[in-house]
């Protein structure tokens, strides 16, 4: 392994992250691992039946297949007791990040607009994709350069983002589309779209800027031992925002 270092923004004490665990979550440990061991934050699991967020500074809804994807992906998870707390936390401006199934849950819960349909090619797709950072001034992307291309893996069968034209126009107008699927050179093309998402949308943020959902898995591209570390920029952005640094320069060496 090459010697890699990650510079983590800090104001002296680690921030508290909560990773929600639903029955069927399977990326909860990945998120927990990177936050604790790579980013040195204070992390705890939050069980779906709990009704307290234990004073966390940010909530992660991880990837997986909550409730077996029964009915629709994320449809049943949104009614978990913990989600009531997440909705009120988010309503008070708390930072919430939904990854993959977490994004599906945020859409089902109405915290983000639109929904995720079956992939256009009908196949489960598990591979690296490229994402273009369309808005680098959010709490989740400030460690990225505008237009930067990130290499992050996807792993989903239902990641085909859909919203009606009016919603899409609003998202575009407000710069709420923060990641789009692109090729390695940063061109947003049909060939670079792995699932048929409308306008190549891979991740969006709410209007207030505190709730973000994305289909790709930044937690699977954060540990230097796995070589690809572009996903770290998303966590470092969030940590930076929590400790009061909104812009970071080169975070990963």
């Amino acid at each position, binding site marked *: 392994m090459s010697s890699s270092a990650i510079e983590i923004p800090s104001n002296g004490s680690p921030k508290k992250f909560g990773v929600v665990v639903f029955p069927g979550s399977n990326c909860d440990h990945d998120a927990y691992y990177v936050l604790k061991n790579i980013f040195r934050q204070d992390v705890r699991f939050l069980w779906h039946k709990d009704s307290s967020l234990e004073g966390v500074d940010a909530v992660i809804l991880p990837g997986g297949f909550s409730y077996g994807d029964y*009915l*629709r992906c994320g*449809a*049943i998870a949104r*009614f978990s007791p913990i989600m009531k707390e997440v909705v009120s936390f988010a309503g008070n401006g708390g930072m919430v990040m939904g990854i993959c199934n977490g994004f599906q849950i945020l*859409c*089902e819960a109405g915290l983000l*607009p*639109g*929904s995720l*349909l*079956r*992939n*256009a*090619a*009908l196949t489960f797709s598990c591979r690296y994709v490229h994402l273009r950072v369309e808005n680098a001034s959010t709490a989740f992307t400030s460690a990225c350069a505008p237009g930067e291309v990130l290499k992050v893996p996807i792993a989903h069968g239902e990641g085909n983002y*859909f*919203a*009606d034209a009016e919603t899409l126009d609003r998202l575009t107008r407000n710069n709420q589309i923060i990641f789009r699927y692109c090729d390695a050179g940063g061109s947003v093309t049909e060939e670079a779209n792995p699932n*048929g998402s409308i306008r190549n949308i891979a991740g969006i943020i709410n209007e207030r800027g505190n709730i973000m959902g994305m289909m790709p898995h930044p937690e699977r591209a954060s540990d230097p031992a796995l070589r690809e570390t572009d996903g770290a920029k998303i966590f470092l952005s969030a940590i930076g925002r929590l400790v009061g640094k909104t812009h970071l320069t080169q975070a990963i060496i």
Partner: protein
Amino acid sequence: MYLAKINITLRTSILDPQGKAVQHAIASLGMDQVRDVRMGKYIEMKISSADRAEADRIASEACKKLLANPVMENFHYTLEKV
């Protein structure tokens, strides 16, 4: 007691890749007259109520709040006394 028979379908504006794949399979069986296959869900549930209006209200609420996602789906149902 009422039995609700609920059909949930993708909104017409939404592409149904699953339906399309099934249509291709049907065509490969020689039935190439088959057009526009759309897949949906069928749900049955019994509602413990003697009052039709109440059963209707419950079925409608269950569809709106959980069984269908209005972003992408429509629903319709019938109620029969059982």
